[in-house]
């Protein structure tokens, strides 16, 4: 059963823009991206949208729907009242290129700043071995599709452009956590995550977790554990003393001494 959907879509570029009103034929079971594609095909041939998979796996179609950061291809029309007007804007934390397309290169710069994996020596037979329980914890973080919705929502940079140089953002805290929990990695990232990535800027208000389309518990399972690890390294006087007098943690949990 089809119906006419009322939409407001942001049109414009860096020099300015506004929300345009449209009405488009849709049918039940479609997603917001379908409606936009029909709009593009029938009324606004030059509407710019970034998308690839239409299956919630490529992370390209991030935008904001009724003010909420979401994937266009995973937001069902059936979640809305047919009489409701659906407002679609580009992500509001990034420079807009045109219409719904933003420039997310900030995220690629942050990715490059992140120190990659540094594995220790191989076992005597030339192989590397990891126990299942030791790798399980990081598996959740590998579900990330790099949609950058968490990065876009995080108020640290969304509301404060000036924090961008000092703050890597939740998606990369996820990566820090994954590597710091990796059983074979040897690099101590606890200083980098605080100094370079700006973990202390996060005030654990959990918006990244709220918007993640993969349902990754970014704050509980990555950010807070990393904050606790930073405390171990930097702020806990007892751990510091224990390390000094050699009481605990002689192997630094497999991290190379720094």
């Amino acid at each position, binding site marked *: 059963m089809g119906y006419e959907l009322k939409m407001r879509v942001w049109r414009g570029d860096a020099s300015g823009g506004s929300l345009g009103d449209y009405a488009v034929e849709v049918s039940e079971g479609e997603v917001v991206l379908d409606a936009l594609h029909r709009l593009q095909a029938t009324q606004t041939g030059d509407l710019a949208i970034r998308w690839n998979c239409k299956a919630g796996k490529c992370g390209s179609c991030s935008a904001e729907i009724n*003010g909420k950061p979401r994937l266009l291809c995973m937001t069902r029309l059936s979640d809305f009242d047919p009489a409701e007007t659906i407002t679609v804007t580009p992500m509001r934390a990034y420079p807009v290129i045109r219409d719904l397309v933003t420039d997310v290169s900030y995220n690629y710069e942050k990715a490059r700043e992140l120190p990659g994996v540094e594995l220790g020596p191989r076992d005597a037979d030339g192989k590397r071995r990891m126990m299942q329980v*030791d790798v399980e914890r990081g598996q959740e973080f590998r579900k990330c599709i790099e949609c950058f919705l968490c990065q876009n929502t995080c108020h640290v940079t969304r509301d404060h452009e000036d924090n961008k140089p000092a703050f890597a953002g939740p998606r990369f805290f996820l990566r820090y956590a994954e590597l710091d929990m990796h059983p074979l990695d040897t690099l101590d990232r606890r200083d980098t995550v605080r100094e370079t990535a700006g973990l202390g800027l996060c005030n654990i208000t959990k918006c990244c977790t709220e918007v993640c389309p993969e349902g990754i518990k970014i704050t509980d399972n990555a950010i807070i554990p990393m904050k606790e690890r930073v405390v171990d390294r930097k702020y806990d006087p007892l751990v510091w003393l224990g390390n000094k007098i050699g009481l605990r943690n002689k192997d630094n949990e497999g991290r190379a001494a720094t």
Partner: protein
Amino acid sequence: MTTGVDGPGRAQIEERTLRTDRWWLTPLATFIVFSGFVVFATVRAFMGRDYFAEPYLSPFYSPCLGDCVEGASDFGQPFSWWPLSAALIILIFPLGFRMTCYYYRKAYYRAFWLSPPACAVAEPHSAYSGETRFPLLVQNLHRYFWYAAIVVGLILTFDVVLAFRPMPDEYAVGDGETSGVHMGLGTLLMAVNVALIWLYTLSCHSCRHIVGGRLRHFSKHPVRYKLWTWVSKLNASHPRYAWYSLFSVAVVDFYIYLLATDVIDDLRFF
């Protein structure tokens, strides 16, 4: 606020949020309930009276280390010279624990400081440094308050044991006390409260880190791995326990206040 969502380069949109749901409801409710609790707790802590109705001791005053009423001090009165309410000597521990709690931080940063009020709703501040500087840097000491909270939990558990003591004569049913134990509504409330406080304390993120989260090789520490798995399960409900235990503490204190001021009599089970 020209560096945020209405800054140069960003899509030009006037509204600070286009959200159409009632995003303000949760922060508003949090603000009202937390403020209510703070007012109630402050009044009760400064009162310095009506915190003991034998055999019940209010959690705000336990352990009672100041110049407390007779029967309330089970650990002596090392601070008997303290001129103010005895609650003020010990409240720093539960207060500090909750103030630095990762969940409460989230809740009050959102509801009281509006940083941010809700997701994708622009915050009203022009500058932001998160938890990188004093005083918020102190949040990093949360684990020490957790250690203290374990001690507080043990003391409150002891209070529950004491709350099974026989009641004084005037409350006796029939011809004086017949058995060595008693249980009343007060005992029940205190027991529920302490259970919720333990759930809250053990589901703490720092607890999760300390018992096993800090390890990189669970396989080398099977016992700690098990503990971590349990605490992780509890941890998922940490916000819920934070709320429940907040209410239960207030309810217990208020019930004891009503008993101590003779407004009501304890409901006795046996």
